[in-house]
């Protein structure tokens, strides 16, 4: 078993792939930068990201995978899920060790695991598209705060740009401390320093005048459409797990 230390980027991961084949390594374990916990008899290798090597691996993947298949790898890496890079590494090695395209080889554990991770990311993205609640600020911008389990903000840009083309909006990931902002022309990544939490209803003056009214109407609507004789909280919680509640107007 060789422990590999890399910088945690997608390019870093692709460089690792190159080195594994170059050095004919067998069993490896990935660790990002900070790893210091050296066991005595382990072999430790630090790999520095190298663009020419990245390009060669990327070209190899392009030959062996469909465009969607390659995109899935990048999205999974981007989502920053626990230990996903080890799955990606196993998957990429399976790609290079096979003669044919293995994207549908669900009998392989890495292919199956990647399909599960992709599904989890897709679900979180979809939930954000559903559960984001904009609040209209006094300058007319629509603001929403989110705290998704995975880093899915980049995956939301197209959906919200296509949908809300005629209003300025800002979606901010409170966990990862960055947001996407649409200014009626283009979407940009932004970072902000919050002096106070604007996701909180404590500062009514920053809201547009009718914001409270529509929040009130929406909560009323939500309560009116419930059919008490069919109450089923188990199903309710499965659809909207509690961790989403604090940003849902109707559940606050």
């Amino acid at each position, binding site marked *: 078993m060789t422990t590999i230390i890399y910088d945690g980027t997608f390019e870093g991961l692709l460089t690792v792939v190159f080195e594994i084949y170059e050095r004919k390594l067998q069993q490896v374990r990935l660790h990002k930068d900070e790893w210091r916990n050296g066991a005595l008899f382990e072999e430790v290798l630090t790999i520095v990201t190298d663009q020419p090597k990245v390009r060669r691996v990327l070209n190899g993947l392009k030959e062996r995978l469909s465009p969607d298949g390659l995109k899935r790898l990048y999205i999974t890496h981007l989502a920053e899920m626990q230990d996903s890079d080890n799955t990606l590494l196993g998957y990429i090695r399976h790609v290079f060790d096979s003669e044919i395209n*293995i994207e*549908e*080889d*669900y*009998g*392989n*554990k890495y292919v*199956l695991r990647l399909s599960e991770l992709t599904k989890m990311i897709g679900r979180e993205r*979809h939930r954000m*598209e*559903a*559960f*984001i*609640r*904009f*609040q*209209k600020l006094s300058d007319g911008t*629509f603001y*929403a705060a989110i705290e998704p389990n995975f880093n899915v903000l980049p995956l939301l840009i197209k959906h919200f740009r*296509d*949908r*809300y*083309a*005629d*209003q300025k909006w800002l979606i901010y990931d409170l966990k990862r401390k960055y947001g996407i902002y649409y200014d*009626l022309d283009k979407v940009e990544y932004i970072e902000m320093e919050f002096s106070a939490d604007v996701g909180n209803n404590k500062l009514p003056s920053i809201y547009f005048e*009718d914001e409270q*009214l*529509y929040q*009130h*109407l*929406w909560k*009323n*609507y*939500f309560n*009116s*459409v*419930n*059919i*008490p*004789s*069919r*109450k*089923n*909280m*188990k*199903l*309710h919680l*499965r*659809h*909207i797990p509690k961790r989403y509640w604090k940003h*849902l*107007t*109707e559940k606050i």
Partner: protein
Amino acid sequence: MDAERITEKLNILADAAKYDVSCASSGSKRKNENKGLGNASNGICHSYTEDGRCVSLLKILLTNHCIYDCAYCISRKSNDIKRAGFTVQEVVDLTINFYRRNYIEGLFLSSGIFKDADHTMERLVRVAKKLRTEHNFNGYIHLKSIPGASDELMREAGLYADRLSINLEMPTETGLKLLAPDKNRQDMIQPMGFLKHEIIQNNEEKKLFKKAPIFAPAGQSTQMIVGATAENDKEVLTSANYFYKNFNLKRVYYSSYVPVLSDKRLPGLNTAVPMIRENRLFQADWLMRFYGFKVNEIVNDQNPILDLDIDPKLSWALRNQQVFPIDINKADLQLILRVPGIGVQSAQKIVSARQFRKLSWDNLKALGVALNRAKYFITCNSNIFEKRDLTGTAIKQFILAESQSKYLKKIQPQLSLF
């Protein structure tokens, strides 16, 4: 806007609309044009009520004033309830402001019938027209067609709405006559037939001219109330099948009758809502639309009522054991789809994955197959498989013993109400 008055209206008119179970916001292909507001493509459920139903659209009545006196309907003329009505502008403002905050996918507008069919339909169409033409709104709009509305109004409705639906209310004409003596089935079928014709014609035009306007791109749907009248599942599903086949409907919704009114023609007020039956009907409907089952394979003269304790696919498999076991590594997709415990997604994954290697029990489990049910009906790359010659009853008992059905406690026979 008078906040108090509008809140009261919204409460009344949302409450009156909630018994319509349709909530779909998918199946349209309306794009955002000229930097307008919204688009409609893949459905999104923006919230869920405590009864677990999806909230996708602002589902309201324009008014709950109604000239009809249908026994099952909370808004019926003779019911002593608060009445209210929205103006066209109020509905437009609510829709736009809810949509901009990402609360909803669009509007589902229905109405009690005031004055006559055309007056009511005209007002519904006016809301949709205003949203589309004055506010450049491209979100989803579902309009109810009013039975007996004229062809001209229906054509206009199709130009602005994504989906149109007309509720058949009761699965059979006899049921309708009993509970809604003022309504007649022909008035419902007529606009449905007209729209089917227009949708087909529009599709033809689209092939010739790319710029032809879109017409009701998400098609038509309908709803039937079950449990209010005596129809059995065979009658309900046969009727649904008839409308799928003859009117190209996208969806038939089954709505359990919720006893809200006391009437000697209806089940009593404290009768339980037949939710399990509704669920089995939905499952059967799915089998017809996505699994290649014919209606008479699911219900027929020998089996007119769906089992409540097991799903309709398992019932079918137990009645047709001569088909099984099938070899998962060789059988056609169509046959794999018929195995209890295997859904559409797992079936497709099986067919893809078996090109690379022969699949074993572990592979199948990892792919998401419910082996507790499937294992009695399949073989795979393993020497272990069900070798006993079990009867249908035995298999059913084994499966029920292993699973914890959320329904088991509540099961009641279908006809005990009458």
